[in-house]
């Protein structure tokens, strides 16, 4: 069962990679990278169970956090063109 899951995840990785290669808009590519990070951590988790090392699950959890923060940072960069505080006035940069 884990082998079937691994194959399915790798196929999904290929599809996400195709979307990142072909994707016409910026948001397709950002979403492809986010999806690819999710697939990578799923692959790590499944491979951990496949090789009888279930402690890889913790590593996959940390990967999920890193992936989330990276996507938020990329999108925030798009919205505000920098990561620091806003230049003056509004507090939109403190999202």
């Amino acid at each position, binding site marked *: 069962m884990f082998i079937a899951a691994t194959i399915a995840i790798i196929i999904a990785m290929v599809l996400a990679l195709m979307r990142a290669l072909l994707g016409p808009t910026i948001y397709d*590519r950002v979403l*492809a*990278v986010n999806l690819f990070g999710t697939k*990578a951590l799923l692959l790590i988790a499944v491979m951990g169970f496949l090789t009888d090392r279930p402690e890889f699950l913790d590593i996959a959890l940390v990967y999920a956090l*890193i992936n989330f923060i990276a996507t938020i940072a990329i999108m925030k960069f798009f919205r505000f063109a920098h990561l*620091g505080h806003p230049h003056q006035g509004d507090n939109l940069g403190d999202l």
Partner: protein
Amino acid sequence: MILFLMAIAAFGIIKLRNLFAVVMLSGIFSLLAASLYVHLTAVDVAFTEASVGAGISTLLMLATLAITGEYEKKHTTNNLFPLLIVVVTGAALIYGTLDMPLYGAANAPANLHLIPRFIEQSGTEIGIPNIVTSVLASYRGYDTLGETVVIFTAAIGVLVLLGRGRNRWRPGISADAPSKDEENEV
């Protein structure tokens, strides 16, 4: 299979002219490399690759893209001679790895002499219960010191380049500088 996907991503990075897509593909490449490191049970390297390669360096390249344009210029020069040099160098490197022992071979020199010594004697020699910590902090102490000096020099260079701006007390500058240092660490 992961190597195959990495090859696809690398060809995409070379071929695509849209630099934003190239940045995204390099993030994917870093994620693939990180999962490859996890499968080689080098978990700490994988963490560094995932956070620095997929996170921080992607952001730094996006910051560069905000300054420059989004599309790469087409260049029409002849690429045959650099290709020849790269092929020869790669062949020499592969030839150099031919007489190395196989990955994880029991009769490799590192597994015969070094690792049993570390396992048996590092506890009494160094006094640190964790073998990896004692190797990193004591046996390879000069190596680690050299790395620290390199990172420190890079930090000074970045601070010299960035710190003399017109608004030097803006919080963005001091938040940008350490991330570039971490990129140099890899």
